[in-house]
């Protein structure tokens, strides 16, 4: 019995020592030494998406992430993650940064160290276009059945208004709920709504009405990471050099970019 106990203690000490060795280093140095910045993202036009028939990630965030990698002198690798697991992915070093039109909510700020905001956004209500007239005010929304991405900023807004909703795992699924008639309405990002619904898109019969709030996008790093400062410096320089606005115009998000 004593032997087993001693063995277990040894094992625990070895493991905790290994844990210590990892955490003391600078995150910036860690990424530079590794030579790759692993960016965690999801398929989220116009921030990160793939052109039909292409394997390369493009979008405002994707292009800026590549520029940031170049600035650091490392390669950039994109990993499509399960959005629910973003904090775990960061903490366990499966990825180095969450960069995907992420709304800076209290929850996000408590889980990671975030950059200064770079882009404005809001949550909007999406309904079928033929009934849109009836739902132009916040008061008119009660009685509708809603869908929203689990834990998203949209879900937070619905909770604040005291409206019930079905939680789904992506904003795209929330749109699908409305398109299929499973829910009357959903709440998603303004930027996404702008790009994904209305005429000439995949959801021509949907439209958005009420904007529930305004909020900001930021980039998330590991707690206490020195990459946050590196990012903020990079962004200021890129903004001054005009790179940020140029890229924004390519993807039609120039109206939302925050002035530096």
């Amino acid at each position, binding site marked *: 019995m004593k032997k087993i106990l001693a063995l277990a203690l040894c094992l625990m000490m070895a493991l905790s020592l*290994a*844990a210590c060795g990892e*955490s003391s280093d600078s995150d910036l140095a860690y990424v530079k030494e590794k030579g790759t910045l692993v960016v965690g993202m999801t398929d989220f036009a116009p921030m990160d998406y793939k052109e039909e028939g292409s394997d390369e990630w493009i979008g405002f965030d994707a292009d800026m992430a590549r520029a940031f990698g170049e600035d650091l002198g490392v390669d950039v690798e994109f990993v499509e993650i*399960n959005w629910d*697991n973003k904090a775990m992915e960061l903490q*366990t*070093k499966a990825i180095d940064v969450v960069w995907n039109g992420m709304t800076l909510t209290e929850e996000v700020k408590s889980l990671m160290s975030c950059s200064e905001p770079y882009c404005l956004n809001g949550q909007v209500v999406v309904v079928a276009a033929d009934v849109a007239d009836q739902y132009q005010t916040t008061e008119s929304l009660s009685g509708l059945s809603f869908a929203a991405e689990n834990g998203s900023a949209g879900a937070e807004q619905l909770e604040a208004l005291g409206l019930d909703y079905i939680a789904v795992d992506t904003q795209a*699924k929330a749109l*699908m709920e409305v398109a299929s008639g499973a829910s009357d309405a959903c709440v998603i990002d303004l930027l996404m709504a702008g790009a994904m619904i209305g005429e000439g898109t995949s959801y021509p019969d949907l439209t958005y009405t009420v904007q529930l709030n305004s909020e900001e996008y930021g980039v998330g790093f590991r707690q206490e990471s020195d990459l946050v400062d590196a990012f903020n410096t990079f962004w200021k320089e890129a903004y001054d050099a005009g790179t940020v606005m140029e890229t924004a115009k390519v993807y039609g998000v120039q109206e939302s970019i925050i002035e530096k």
Partner: protein
Amino acid sequence: MLLDVTLSLLEGFGVTVQMFVLTLVFALPLGLIISFGSMSRFAPLRRLIQGFVWIVRGSPLMLQVLIIFYGPGLLFGLPLLPRFTAALLAFVINYACYFSEIYRGGIQSVPRGQYEAGQVLGMTKPQIFFKITLLQVIKRIIPPMGNEWITLVKDTALVRVISVYEIIWMGESYIKKGMIWPLFYTMVFYLAFNGILTIFFGWLEKKMDYFK
């Protein structure tokens, strides 16, 4: 359009099939070893293995996948296994435990008299196991094994929680482009694959019909 979607789903299905085949390659032998452990006459070993099987069979496979991938990093700050490897490890452990119980059922269903007959003939224990018991065990476990294999094909859909891009992930990614049918189209792939498995197990059962 159909061709593009089919090709992209096939890519995902390749990952599904790899997960299926590799899980079987490792879990089938490991399950046999675990079943010996759970039948051991050395009580502490038997209890330990039974406890382990209880934990693995009694908790959701999805949690096991999450724990094996994120656990080392979250608890000890250790570097992570590659995503596919972590998912595979979770599947091998989980399925080995299920297989071990199927083996145990098969082995214990062989009548005691057969061991005794072997002993009378002067055969050693391994000789009795491999020459008398094993073939009968294989015959008896074919139906439950068929069940588990088919379940395994569908369980592989769980690995997308740690971003292993199997067929359901590929199907779901089309939803963002406004296409809903590719997700349901994945069902054709599962049905075709499980159809082949069903035919294979039917054939195997017939093949094993020689001793009744």
